[in-house]
């Protein structure tokens, strides 16, 4: 990964890095890339991907409305809230 690709990944993940962090992350990517050819061995071509180690069950609750927490409880940890709403900057000018 080069700096251009990293800039794109940063934008996608809503992150920014300092210059020293950028150097460290690029070095990290270069090191990780050294191991990746192991995944390209022909032996894996015919093997089914194993997404999970156990059979997954879709967890769905009954289709009944419930209110496990109040609005006040849910907003207790909010960085900013007012009038029962989470406060964010204006989205439309």
């Amino acid at each position, binding site marked *: 990964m080069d700096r251009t690709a990293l800039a794109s990944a940063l934008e996608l993940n809503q992150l920014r890095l300092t210059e020293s962090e950028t150097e460290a*992350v690029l070095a990290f990517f270069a090191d990780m890339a050294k191991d990746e050819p192991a995944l390209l061995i022909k032996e894996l071509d015919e093997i089914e991907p194993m997404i999970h180690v156990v059979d997954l069950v879709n967890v769905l609750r009954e289709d009944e409305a419930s209110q496990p927490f109040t609005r006040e409880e849910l907003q207790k*940890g909010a960085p900013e809230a007012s009038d029962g709403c989470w406060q*964010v*900057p204006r989205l439309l000018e």
Partner: protein
Amino acid sequence: MDAYITKLDGAVAVDDTILTTGCPTTAGSRMLENFTSLFEATAVTKMKAAGYTLAGKTAVGEFGLDTLGETCFFDAPLGAAAKIVSEGEVMAALNVDLNGAPRRAAALYGVTFIKPTYGTVSRVGVVPCACSGEQIGVTAKSAKEAASLLAAIAGHDPGDGTSFSAGKYEYALDIPLAGKRVGIIRELMTGENTGKVETMAAKLRALGAEVTDISLPEVSLAKTAWQVLLAAETCNNLSRYDGVKFGYRTEEYKNIEELYVGSRSESMGLLAKAVILYGSDVLSKGRYDDCYDRALRARRRVREALAGAFGEADILLSPACLKAAYTKEELKPLLSVYEESVYTAFASVTGVPAVISGGVQMVSDTLNDALLLSAAAQTEV
């Protein structure tokens, strides 16, 4: 974090990546510095119902991604949970093992840790990071104490789609070891802890086990596969932190984009950022087929290789980490955690149980947890 700890008989400390009510859950990150959950993890509820006391929270590396807790935003010792268990501050601890940190810590502090078979302990209430491999386990001074606490927290949870159907599990500690086959993984006999493996092998031989060397070259493939899968899952799971509904919010923003970027960038450490970016990369259109998809195939290959190994040995024996001691300084390079994970990744990526005892790692096939705990119990001094 130590401030929460009280000296109580039967008291259990809980990793700070496990949700509790009444005290904060930070996951070792500035992002969750002041976060208190509205509900507690199923494992904590079950533990309390069985009569254990929640003594407090133990510090972890940011989201549990690192080697030994070195990336914790708060000042904390390496392997905090294993340390206080070894010092007798608490009877036991619940830890989340997603990249081997509790196993390494237990090996370094000479206590017992079990990462049970994936699916036997509910993950409801674990701060999610690498869900397909993370599992709540137990650290204790002895295999008996670990088994008792594990029996209390294990069992089906309808809220966890990966939870096995058995309602409860029992962990006998008296399974005879005579005639059991133990294989020392040749490829992992490196570093400063091979002597401990030889010591454990001698104890198992004395109990009648047949100990041989076994080759499992797929441990390297497991490491590579797990680093890809862990990063991909972490990237997705940590995308929820944006400074809007809970957690850290930057003070400097003019618009919503600056709020997101500032909050995430100021609150997350370098390892978390690097893993997120790597995860995003391996999931990208140009890399998915050659990286993420191949890692999923590698997971099955490793599982098949382990099945073959378990045809030759009931227990696989290896070191749990490279060195006999670590300093925070030497764990700073980003790659150290991945170099270390060669010892632990094969159990993480396949969900098989692993026990640390006598400073070494013992691994067995799915649902063979009791055999591992028996081996630990019967070889304790």
